[in-house]
């Protein structure tokens, strides 16, 4: 187990953010996804990342785990700069977009979660097996997947699999949990259970959560702040401030209407009658204005 001597949750110093982006810019050739992004995340904070397809939501997470280099600016995770040789970090838990594993992977749920606990370590891992096993049981209990412990991963449903991968991501007790559309393949009930699980975990453990989603309603009332990426620019702030007609109209450079009804937010492109209404459960991504170049 890698229980480093890092400050645990509440008493961790506010002067050291879990994640700090300074002037971060990402461009593919001429196409700027976002630029000048400044972001400081405190322990236990939940930030929802919104934006259309190709707005650079997943790329943002990839830069934080060091899989993609920034065009300009810097990223610090838990006080350490990301980039160069520093690829990946034990302070980060990552729940990727892709839910399913290669079906040829013959292993049990317990084995997969165990990889999250000690998979980065050298050696065959025959020693300390008992302690590792206890930790795996703890994690499975934490995500409510104890009954699945001995099931082959190839037989899990989408919701079960996502639970297990969250356990795998939480195994290292990360300070920062990155979730890349973890709800994409889940039905409404499953989505709510996963969001509740992550919310409870970050409140009890002080883990900061950066949550990429195209369905703001799934995390409405949970997200402390919203980062909205569009048109090569961004807006960052409390949900009620960012998810407002004036803000989004300014961000997209085209008229956008934001409606609030029955505790849900609906974002509509006002100018273009042919544009899709932002219906998060219609199963496709919204992009009220034209894709920014």
């Amino acid at each position, binding site marked *: 187990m890698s229980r480093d001597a890092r400050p645990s949750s509440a008493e961790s110093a506010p002067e050291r953010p879990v994640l700090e982006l300074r002037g971060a810019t990402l461009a593919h050739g001429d196409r700027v996804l976002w630029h000048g992004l400044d972001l400081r995340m405190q322990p236990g904070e939940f930030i929802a990342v919104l934006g259309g397809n190709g707005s650079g939501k997943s790329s943002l997470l990839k830069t934080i785990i060091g899989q993609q280099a920034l065009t300009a600016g810097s990223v610090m995770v838990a006080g350490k700069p990301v980039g160069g040789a520093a690829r990946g970090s034990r302070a980060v838990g990552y729940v990727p977009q892709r839910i399913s594993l290669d079906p040829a992977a013959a292993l049990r749920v317990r084995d997969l979660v165990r990889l999250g606990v000690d998979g980065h370590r050298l*050696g065959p891992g025959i020693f300390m097996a008992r302690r590792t096993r206890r930790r795996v049981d703890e994690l499975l209990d934490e995500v409510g997947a104890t009954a699945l412990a001995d099931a082959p*991963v190839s037989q899990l449903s989408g919701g079960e699999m996502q639970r297990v*991968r969250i356990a795998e991501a939480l195994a290292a007790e990360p300070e920062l949990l990155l979730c890349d559309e973890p709800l994409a393949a889940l039905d409404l009930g499953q989505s709510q259970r996963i969001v509740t699980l992550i919310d409870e975990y970050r409140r009890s453990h002080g883990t900061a959560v950066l949550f990429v989603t195209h369905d703001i309603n799934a995390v409405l009332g949970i997200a402390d702040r919203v980062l909205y990426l569009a048109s090569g620019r961004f807006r960052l702030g409390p949900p009620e401030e960012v998810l407002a007609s004036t803000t989004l109209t300014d961000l997209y450079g085209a008229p956008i209407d934001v409606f609030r009804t029955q505790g849900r937010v609906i974002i509509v492109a006002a100018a273009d009658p042919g544009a899709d209404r932002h219906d998060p459960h219609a199963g496709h991504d919204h992009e009220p204005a034209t894709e920014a170049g």
Partner: protein
Amino acid sequence: MSWRDVIDFSDYGALVALLHNSIIAGAVLGLVGGLVGVFVMMRDLSFAVHGTSELSFAGAALALLLGVDVVIGSVIGSLAAALIFGALGIKARDRSSIIGVLMPFGLGLGVLFLSLYKGRGANKFGLLTGQIVSVDDPGLAWLTGVSVVVLLALAIVWRPLLFATVDPEIAAARGVPVRALAPIFMIVLGLTVAMSVKIIGALLVLALLVTPAAAAMRVTVSMLWVPVLSVIFAVTSMVGGIMLALGGRLPISPYITTISFAIYLVCRLIGRARTRRGWTARGARVEPPRGARETHPAALRVGSGPQHL
């Protein structure tokens, strides 16, 4: 041809004493092959194994022609293959096409070298289908040495390699050097193939590196039991095959492949029964586990690949 050609147990004790080197070599190969096979299956490298063994065969044939030790040739051939496959084929699809291109070329080169070779005919045939009497004391020492290297390397990278194989995205995010592990494993695989070629032959390396692990994965999905069973199956096929082949006059390969295949069939039957009952206390699911190993394109290619058998 009589049954005595196939199995003959007269003077058996004397034969075992005479060929105990081969039996030890078989057991060592079974141990290494069974372990490496687990990753071959999980990383979907069956086709790469076949390609590597053909290039290993070409190297061995060249060594035979030049009068150098065959083992040196096969090691050079399979390491070249491993490095090429590792460097060029990051994606499975690229890899398959590169292997598909290089494999017949390697086989063709091998055939060329063999036909230029004027020595004994048994040596030629042995490279393709294996030979049993060829393990002398230096040969065994060499085999054991390489096996120790391979086993040590596997032991050291076992967990990160498994992590990188099963869940590359999360592993990379956690700082596991996913990309660096691929060529390391290809070298381990190349060395294992090179060792196997001389004993069981280039054409039948898959029986050692794929079948035992595939059989094990039919009956268990435990991270501990898959390698353990795979090793048991591989050692059983190797040692059992050699023991049966001792008395007869046939080459060693049919014995090994038959035992190996029989174990696989039994494991499939057990696996099917187990699926019907359900793997866990949760009970059976309506849907059987995905038959990835039957439907995967690479598996199909391997299945229909060795037409020359």
